[in-house]
C-alpha cells in the first residue's frame, strides 16, 4: 500500500477516525499497532511475524538490561541483541550477495564452487526498523534512555506505519515519549500535516515518477543511448531520488502529524549544500546521524586524530553504502563518498559547513558567485556518484562514466544535449520551477503557503498543486525507491 495510492487514502481516514475515537493512550496505541501491522501486511503479511520478533527481541533486551547491573552480563545482552538484529538483516538482505561474491572470489583463484543460492525476498523496511530497534537497545545500554516497560508502546514505536517502510529512522528518546501520552487532535498540526502530504505527493507524482520514466529508459539500455541522454538521465536521477525519498519523508511526517506525532526532518535542501560534508548533513539526516551516533562517535569520531579519523570516516560511509543494498555498486558508492569526504576534510574545504537547521546557500535571496560555484561543484560530484547508485552493476557504471566522459570531449555532445533538453522540456521546466521554489522557500520545511497567507491564496495554491499532481502524474505511480532498501 503505497502512499501514492488510493488504497492508502481510504485506509488513512478509517485509522484516523478510530484513533481519535479512543480516549485512552493504550487504546490509541492499540489502533496504531493494529493499523501498522495491517499496513505492513498489505506489502507482505508473511513478514509481520519477523517484525514482531525483531521488536520483542529488543523490548526484552531493554528489560534485561534494566535488571542487570553486572557489566559483563549487560555486554552479553547487548551482543545477543545486536547479533540477532544484524543476523536477521544479514540473512534477508545480504545472504545471496555474500555467497555470490565468495563464489566469484574463489573462482578467481581457480576453484569452482557450486553455489545454489536460495531465493530470499527482502522484507520491506527491514533496514529501517532494525536500525530503529538497535538504536533503542544501544541507547538503553548506554543509559541514555529509560527502559520501556509498556510492550504496546514499544510495538507502536517500532511499527508506526507512516515511517515503517522507509523512515525516517527515529530514536527511542524522541518517539517513545510521544506514545506515552494521550494524543489530542490539534487543528494547526492537522493542517500542517495535510500540507506536507500534498507537497510530498507533488514531488513524488509530478517530478519523481516522470523523471524516473526517462531515467529507466536510459539506464535500462545505456549501450543504446548516446552520451547526452546518459548525462541528462544522471542529472534526472539525482532529482528523482531526491524528490522520491524526500516526498516519502514529507508524507510520513505529514501523516504522523495527523496522529499528533512529530517525526524528525530527513532532508534539508541537500542540493544547496556547498560541500560534501554539508550535503551529508542535509541528506537522509536520520540515517547519517544514526551512523554518526552509533558507529562514528563510538569509534572515536573526529576526536581520534590522524589516520584513525579518516579510517572511521571511510568505514562509516562504506557501511552506509552496504546499508543501501547488497551490491558492489552500493559498496563502491559508499566508499567513494568516504574517500571524497576524507579528502575534503584533509583539504579543509568543509570548515564552516552549515548544519541542517541553518538556511542553505546564503541568507540573502541571491547567493554570491562563490556560493553558486560551490553548490554547483558539490552537485556535480554528487551526480557523478549517483551513477554507481543507479547502474545495474559496476561494469555498466564504468561504461556510463566512460561514455559520458568521452562524449563530453566532442562538440557534437553539446548540440545533442540541447536536442535532448528540447525533447524533455516539460520535465525540465518542472525541475526549474521546483528548484526555484525550493530556493525561495529554503528557510521553511516546504514551499506551500502557510497560515500567514490569505485563505483564498492558500486554497488556490492547494487546488493548483492538487490538479498538477493529477495532470502530470503518470499512469502508474512507481514504488518509492527507498522501499528496496
Amino acid at each position: 500500500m503505497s502512499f501514492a495510492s488510493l488504497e492508502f487514502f481510504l485506509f488513512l481516514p478509517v485509522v484516523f477516525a478510530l484513533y481519535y475515537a479512543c480516549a485512552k493512550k493504550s487504546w490509541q496505541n492499540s489502533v496504531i499497532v493494529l493499523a501498522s501491522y495491517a499496513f505492513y501486511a498489505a506489502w507482505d503479511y508473511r513478514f509481520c511475524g519477523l517484525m514482531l520478533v525483531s521488536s520483542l527481541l529488543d523490548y526484552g533486551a531493554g528489560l534485561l538490561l534494566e535488571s542487570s547491573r553486572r557489566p559483563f552480563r549487560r555486554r552479553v545482552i547487548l551482543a545477543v541483541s545486536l547479533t540477532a538484529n544484524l543476523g536477521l538483516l544479514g540473512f534477508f538482505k545480504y545472504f545471496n550477495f555474500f555467497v555470490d561474491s565468495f563464489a566469484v572470489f574463489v573462482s578467481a583463484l581457480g576453484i569452482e564452487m557450486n553455489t545454489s543460492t536460495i531465493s530470499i525476498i527482502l522484507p520491506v523496511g527491514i533496514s529501517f526498523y532494525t536500525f530503529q530497534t538497535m538504536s533503542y537497545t544501544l541507547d538503553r545500554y548506554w543509559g541514555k534512555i529509560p527502559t520501556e516497560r509498556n510492550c504496546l508502546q514499544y510495538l507502536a514505536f517500532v511499527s508506526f506505519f507512516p515511517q515503517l517502510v522507509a523512515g525516517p529512522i527515529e530514536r527511542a528518546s524522541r518517539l517513545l515519549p510521544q506514545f506515552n501520552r494521550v494524543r489530542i487532535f490539534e487543528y494547526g498540526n492537522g493542517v500542517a500535516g495535510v500540507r506536507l502530504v500534498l507537497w510530498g505527493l507533488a514531488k513524488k507524482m509530478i517530478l519523481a515518477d516522470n523523471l524516473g520514466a526517462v531515467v529507466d529508459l536510459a539506464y535500462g539500455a545505456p549501450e543504446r543511448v548516446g552520451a547526452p541522454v546518459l548525462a541528462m538521465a544522471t542529472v534526472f536521477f539525482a532529482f528523482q531520488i531526491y524528490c522520491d525519498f524526500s516526498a516519502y519523508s514529507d508524507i510520513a511526517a505529514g501523516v504522523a502529524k495527523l496522529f499528533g506525532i512529530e517525526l524528525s526532518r530527513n532532508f534539508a535542501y541537500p542540493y544547496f549544500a556547498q560541500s560534501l560534508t554539508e550535503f551529508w548533513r542535509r541528506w537522509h539526516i536520520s540515517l547519517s546521524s544514526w551512523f554518526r551516533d552509533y558507529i562514528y562517535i563510538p569509534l572515536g569520531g573526529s576526536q581520534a586524530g590522524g589516520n584513525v579519523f579518516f579510517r572511521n570516516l571511510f568505514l562509516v560511509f562504506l557501511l552506509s553504502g552496504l546499508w543501501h543494498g547488497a551490491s558492489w555498486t552500493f559498496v563502491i558508492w559508499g566508499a567513494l563518498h568516504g574517500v571524497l569526504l576524507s579528502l575534503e576534510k584533509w583539504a579543509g574545504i568543509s570548515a564552516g559547513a552549515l548544519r541542517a537547521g541553518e538556511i542553505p546557500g546564503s541568507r540573502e535571496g541571491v547567493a554570491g558567485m562563490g556560493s553558486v560555484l560551490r553548490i554547483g561543484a558539490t552537485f556535480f560530484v554528487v551526480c557523478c556518484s549517483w551513477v554507481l547508485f543507479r547502474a545495474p552493476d559496476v561494469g555498466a557504471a564504468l561504461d556510463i562514466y566512460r561514455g559520458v566522459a568521452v562524449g563530453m570531449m566532442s562538440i557534437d555532445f553539446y548540440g545533442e544535449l540541447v536536442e535532448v533538453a528540447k525533447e524533455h522540456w516539460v520535465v525540465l521546466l518542472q525541475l526549474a520551477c521546483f528548484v526555484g521554489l525550493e530556493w525561495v522557500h529554503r528557510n521553511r520545511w516546504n514551499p506551500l503557503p502557510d497560515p500567514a497567507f490569505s485563505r483564498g491564496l492558500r486554497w488556490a495554491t492547494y487546488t493548483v498543486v492538487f490538479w498538477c499532481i493529477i495532470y502530470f502524474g503518470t499512469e502508474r505511480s512507481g514504488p518509492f525507491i527507498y522501499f528496496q532498501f
Partner: protein
Amino acid sequence: MKRFVLKVGMFLALQAAVFLAMVGWHDGSQTEGYLAASIGKHERLEQARSPRIILVGGSNLAFGMNSPRLEEKTGCAVVNMGLVAGVGLDFMLSEVEGAVRRGDLVVLSLEYDAFSAMFNPAIIRQLLAVRPASAAYLSSAHSGKVIISEGLSIVGEITRRALAFGPVDEEVQYPYVRRGFNRWGDLTNHYGAPRCFEYKPEAMQEGFRELWIPRERTLARLERFGAMCQKRGAAFVYSCPPHPIEAVRRHAATLTAVMERLRGIETLRLVDTPEDQAYPTESFYDTGYHLNQPAVNERTDRVAVALKSILNPSTDESMLLSDR
C-alpha cells in the same frame, strides 16, 4: 477536529466540482483509440429505431460481424455493441439494459473465456477515460475494484484529455483504431490484412478451461437480463462466438458443459452451437475469436439463419443464404 474535517471535506468537494466541470468539458470526439468506438456505438444505440438487433459481446463481434449485411438479410436495424470482452459480461449487459425496447432482439455472443473472471479494471480505465459516462454501467462490486485500482489513473486521464485543448497523443495500434469502425459498430479496417494467427493448442494452460463454465452468479445475471427483455417485449438469445474448428473439437467436453448451463436459463434462447460457429484456422485474423473478411460474411449469414426463427418464423432460409 470538526473544523478540520469540515475544511478537508470542503476542499475535496471543491476538487470534485472541478473534476465534474472537466468531465463536462471533456470531448471524446477527438480520440482515436480503439475503445473510443464505444462513443459511436452508444450514439447508434440511442438513435436506431426499433425493431433492432442489438449485438452484445466482446471483440469477436467488432471484428467478426457485417452489420449492414445482417440488416439487409433480416430487415432489422443492427447495432453492434461488441468491443472488448475485458469489460466483463455484467458491464456489457448494463450498457444496453436501459436501451432495450419492444421488438428488439438482443443477441449475446460472448467469448467462451469471458463468462467468468474476465473483468479487467485496466480496460475499464481506458474506456472511462474516453467515455466517462460509461461509469454508470459498472456494478457496485466492480466500481469498488475500479476506483481502488484505477481511480487515480482515470481521473488523471480525463483531466489530461479535458485540458488538452486538441487531439491527445495516443499510441494506437493498427487495426485497433476508432476510425476503423463503420457506423453500425463493425471494425472493418482489418479486411484484407494478412493473417497473423496460428492455432497453438498448447497455448492454453490446463485447468484454464474450467473458467469457461459459467458460474451461478453469471447465470443469475443472464436470467435477470432475459426477464427484463421479456418484460419489455424484447427477445434475448445467445449465439456462439466464432472459434477455430480444432479448438472446438479439442474442448468439446467443456463447450458442451458451457452450453448445457446456458440452456438452463429460461429467459435465454440458444440459436446455434459451438460447432455451427467453428471455422478453419485460416478464417481468423489475429486471435482465435477475430475473423477475417471472407469469414465475417460467412458468420453473418450463419447468424442471420440462426435468428430466422425468432425474427420471422416464415422467412425462407434460402433467401437468407442467397448471397453466401
